[in-house]
């Protein structure tokens, strides 16, 4: 029989075990740079990177680029959800839509859409629009395909019993198909969140115009490695935080969902 305090102690131990390796790496990094084993100009000490990060965040220099990257990523992702989910549902429920769209999406999914950046710049300009459209394009594919697989895999027992009770097609989508596909849609959104941040940063690195990606490239050009590291830290943090938010939302929204094995 395990007591609650016992659980607490083992949780502390697990946390400790997790912290030790990361702590060792950070201390080794700090020592190596302080003792000039590696050139501190190209590989600055951790403490200085953290200090720079705090300065940039507290001074507000990091906030503008952070906001630009964040809204572009979220707008592109939101558009992909708004268009991709209905598209995926229709693909999953209509044979004709499936026949036409499934090969297109499956074929294009693994292709590097990032190669279209120059084309998007010529279509949508150098500024935010081309970046948002690029993020939208990259996020659309996982969302459509995950939604499609979710909608396709719905057990016919649910649709039959809804049909038997005279449910119309529109109501069927809202009340049966969409809810039963939600778990799969969320898997797609979780993949797409990571993609959105990545593509936002890459477009900013390639075509400039503010944002964290641009901030990194500028720091690189000025040889300011501390700022480059601090920006990388912010980029990783927003990727991580958005992923965790998507995960938490999933648990809240899908608490009723029984995952079928």
């Amino acid at each position, binding site marked *: 029989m395990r007591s609650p305090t016992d659980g607490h102690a083992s949780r502390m131990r697990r946390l400790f075990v997790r912290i030790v*390796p990361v702590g060792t790496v950070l201390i080794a990094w700090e020592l190596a740079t302080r003792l000039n084993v590696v050139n501190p100009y190209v*590989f600055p000490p951790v403490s200085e990177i953290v200090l720079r990060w705090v300065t940039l965040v507290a001074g507000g220099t990091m906030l503008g680029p952070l906001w630009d990257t964040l809204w572009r990523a979220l707008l592109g992702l939101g558009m992909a959800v708004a268009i991709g989910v209905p598209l995926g549902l229709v693909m999953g429920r209509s044979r004709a839509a499936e026949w036409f769209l*499934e090969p297109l999406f499956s074929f294009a999914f693994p*292709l*590097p859409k990032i*190669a279209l950046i120059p*084309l998007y710049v010529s279509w949508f300009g150098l500024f935010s629009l081309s970046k948002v459209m690029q993020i939208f394009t990259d996020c659309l594919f996982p969302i459509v395909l995950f939604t499609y697989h979710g909608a396709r895999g719905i057990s016919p027992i649910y649709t039959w019993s809804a049909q038997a009770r005279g449910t119309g097609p529109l109501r069927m989508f809202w009340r049966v198909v969409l809810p039963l596909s939600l778990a799969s849609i969320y898997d797609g959104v979780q993949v797409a969140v990571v993609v959105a941040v990545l593509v936002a940063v890459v477009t900013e690195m390639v075509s400039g115009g503010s944002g964290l990606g641009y901030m990194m490239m500028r720091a690189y050009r000025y040889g300011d490695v501390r700022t480059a590291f601090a920006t990388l830290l912010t980029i990783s943090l927003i990727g991580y935080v958005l992923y965790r938010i998507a995960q938490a939302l999933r648990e809240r929204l899908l608490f009723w969902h029984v995952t079928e094995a």
Partner: protein
Amino acid sequence: MTGARGGWQSTGRNMLRILPVLIVLGLWQFASATGVLPKSLMPSLFEVGRALAGLIASGEIVPHTLASLGRAGAGFFVAVVFGIAIGVLMARVHSVQLALEPILGLIYPVPKPALIPLFMVWLGIGNFSKIAVIALACLVPIVIATFNGARSVDPMLLWSARARGTSERRLLWRVVLPSALPQIAAGVRTAIAIAVIVLVSSEFISSEAGLGFLIFSYGGVGAEDAMLAVVLYLAVLGYALDRLYVAGLRKAMAWHAFAH
């Protein structure tokens, strides 16, 4: 699924699957020819095809293909060798798992192309920095897949091999790796797609050769037919590599339930 009949059926299915792609390409050409899609916005499919034929006929695309394949291949190869080794070690040696799992958790959420500027500071703007970022980006999915595969080896297999006096070394090669292979293969396939994305991003940011460089420089001078030709070429190349990998895998793993 063997025999002529199965072969014909699957050919028919593939034809049916490729038809929508052909319809979209046809619509593109039709829209360009009738002027619905203005030339200023996008060249026609035929123009892109002509540009691609020109790039191939003149041999211009060859050194760029080699440069890109070399970078992606080198990074990918390093990732496969180290990724499988690290993944197996993590699964078999508990202390290694304890040491590396949190560090892996730290690297995992970093969008790898964001490392390109830092690697350029460390390793210069040449090939090394690109190869290193590609290797690191490919490493993570391979390590995770190998770790999961090697960890979930059926203990019955291990017991019966040990009971017959199999050495630990032989156990690794004859039992652990083969039964982890399907998961490793899936991780490697993810890594191929990642390699191409990181490759193109890094070549966009800085390079003087490679397919990403070619796309970017043609885009920069407004030669959109040539730019799209290279994009198309890259897409076909990526697709061919993936199919080649899957076909090779099926051959190599014909004995495994996964292949059927």
